[in-house]
């Protein structure tokens, strides 16, 4: 178990900078999720932590020890891949036992450890099979087994659930969460799936273009997105963004006017309103009216596409118990405290 510190970690492939001066401290026992779109440098970060790629600049410390130049087999990290990466020529047992064999663990110890890991992952009955005889979910369990069978400094997981179907993904998600609780180990988990990130993470690092955009708890990231990118990346359906400017302590766009007391006047801004941040109208709320264009019932919730004031088009969650019809008018209330304001030029959050 270890604390992992990245100091200015940089990776360049020729002209491409995959990772730009990453500073990140992952505490002992923390579940850190790297979240971001494809190509943002998540895998590169994991590869650097694992030692599978050499850093172009920067340092990497495990528990204060500089491991920047240590090859992967001396770093004692375990890794789980999207493609499972099971050795096709070995049985499940041998796959799980492989890291132990390389460490010259005594035979009896291997047997015991592999069985224990297999029990924990409920794959004890599959030990004699070969990878091609397993389903996707079973394969990923074997891959997890191969990781937990030893005692690594950290678990690195690169989109481990992306190849699984939706139902399996949910159960595997809770399995991974359970493993984290039991092992109390450091996890670095890569995903582009915000739901996975939100449910699993102690902290999330949202990345884009090789840079960390925001590092915070799931709530923090969701409640206080640091910039437009983070605001847009998290939330489903995505946040509504409305361009406008600040005048007389309010956000103005044509006839639309929403209070924004702390913002400096004259600024070009983007206002963010999450679809779920609307309620039934009430005195302390700002009214917002429009016409329903499209209704999408999802069962648990119903969302409506609404053409709102000042030519905006908004996605709103219809308050519980309401009935809306396409073509009819709708009026909801918005809590001004739940509005997000971003500077249009810098895309950064204001206040």
């Amino acid at each position, binding site marked *: 178990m270890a604390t992992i510190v990245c100091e200015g970690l940089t990776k360049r492939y020729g002209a491409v900078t995959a990772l730009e001066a990453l500073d990140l401290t992952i505490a002992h026992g923390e579940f850190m999720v790297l979240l971001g779109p494809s190509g943002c440098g998540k895998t590169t970060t994991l590869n650097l932590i694992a030692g599978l790629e050499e850093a172009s600049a920067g340092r990497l410390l495990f528990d204060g020890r500089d491991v920047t130049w240590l*090859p992967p087999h001396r770093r004692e990290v375990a890794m789980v891949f999207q493609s*499972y990466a099971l050795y*096709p020529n070995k049985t499940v047992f041998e796959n799980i036992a*492989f890291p132990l064999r390389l460490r010259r663990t005594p035979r009896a110890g291997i047997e015991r450890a592999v069985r224990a890991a297999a029990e924990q992952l409920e794959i004890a009955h599959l030990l004699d099979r070969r990878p091609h005889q397993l389903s996707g979910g079973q394969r990923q369990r074997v891959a997890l087994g*191969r990781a937990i069978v030893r005692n690594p400094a950290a678990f690195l997981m690169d989109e481990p659930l992306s190849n699984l179907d939706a139902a399996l993904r949910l159960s595997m998600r809770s399995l991974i969460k359970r493993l984290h609780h039991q092992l109390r180990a450091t996890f670095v988990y890569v995903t582009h799936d915000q739901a996975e990130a939100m449910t699993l993470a102690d902290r999330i690092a949202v990345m884009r273009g090789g840079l960390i955009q925001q590092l915070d708890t799931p709530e923090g990231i969701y409640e206080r997105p640091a910039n437009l990118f983070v605001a847009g990346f998290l939330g489903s359906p995505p946040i509504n963004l409305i361009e406008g400017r600040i005048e007389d302590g309010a956000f103005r766009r044509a006839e639309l006017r929403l209070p924004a007391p702390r913002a400096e006047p004259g600024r070009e801004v983007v206002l963010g309103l999450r679809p779920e941040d609307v309620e039934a109208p009430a005195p302390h709320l700002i009214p917002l009216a429009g016409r329903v264009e499209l209704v999408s019932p999802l069962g648990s919730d119903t969302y409506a596409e609404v053409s709102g004031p000042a030519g905006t088009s908004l996605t709103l969650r219809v308050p519980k118990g309401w009935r809306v019809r396409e073509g009819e008018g709708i009026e909801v209330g918005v809590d001004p405290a739940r509005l997000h304001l971003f500077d249009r030029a810098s895309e950064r959050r204001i206040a």
Partner: protein
Amino acid sequence: MSGAEDRRAPPPGRAAARRPVAPRLGRGLLLAAFSLLFVLYVAGPVAWLVSSSLQTEAQATAVPPNWLPPEPTLANFEAIFRAAERVVTYETRRQGDPATGGFLPTGAQNLLPSLRNSLVVGLWVAALNLLLSLTAAYAIAVIDFRGRRATLYTVLATRVIPDIALVVPLFLVIRALGLINSLAALVVTYLAVTVPFTIFILISYFEGIPRDLYRAARVDGCGHWGALRQVYLPLSLPALVAALTFAFLTSWNEFVFALVLTQNVEAQTLPIVISGFVMDFTTSFSFVNAAGVIAIVPPVLLAVLFQRYIVSGLTAGAVKG
């Protein structure tokens, strides 16, 4: 109609309605005709070689030719395997021999030793070639090191120079090393000839092995040697078989280098001895043909045995262009 259904043969009733029988019959006949031509062209010459090796000299040189041996005889092969017991003199050659028509070449007793030389060289080349290529191909395909492209291009570039152009300097190098007329000289030379191709095949194959397997192995605790031995080696058996076969065939068939680097029975390989027969006008045809058949058998056996691997190995780089 779904795609999968489309591919299967339609039920007979509808087939008759939609597609008349004639074109399919035509296709069958066309295929049969072309197959026959193909077989005649590819196998005909060898069949004739084999056929005449099973005839006595008189039968083989009959006019018109005996297409099939009238009385198949192994006498020519016997002559080859017993050549060592005979002293070939002017007298014995004149006296004649019923099987060979009397023209047993002077070098006949070199044939068996050269067969052995060819085998020894081929096996050494195959084994060493694999050892050398395996490590280099792994490094080039898997490790990201400075000079990796340069290494690859250098290795491949050595095969651009025609063998005949290399023969002279190589002859001088080998002579300087005191290795002229030794099997070692041939082995080293053939390594230079076969290793670039093997490396090429293995690289193509290695690049097809998922990178994540390599990552998993390294993280699990393998160094580069471990990853090579534990992951790449067991997963590339087909390519290894292909490489072994190529290396053996290449050295078994090679001619120019052996011609220049060897001088006598100590080191001469089968092609050299056989070419000697061919250029000796007094040699009996049936005897030469039998020798040719012997030289063909091992490579053809290997080729047929490992057909699948050879084809995939030969064409490994083709898909990538």
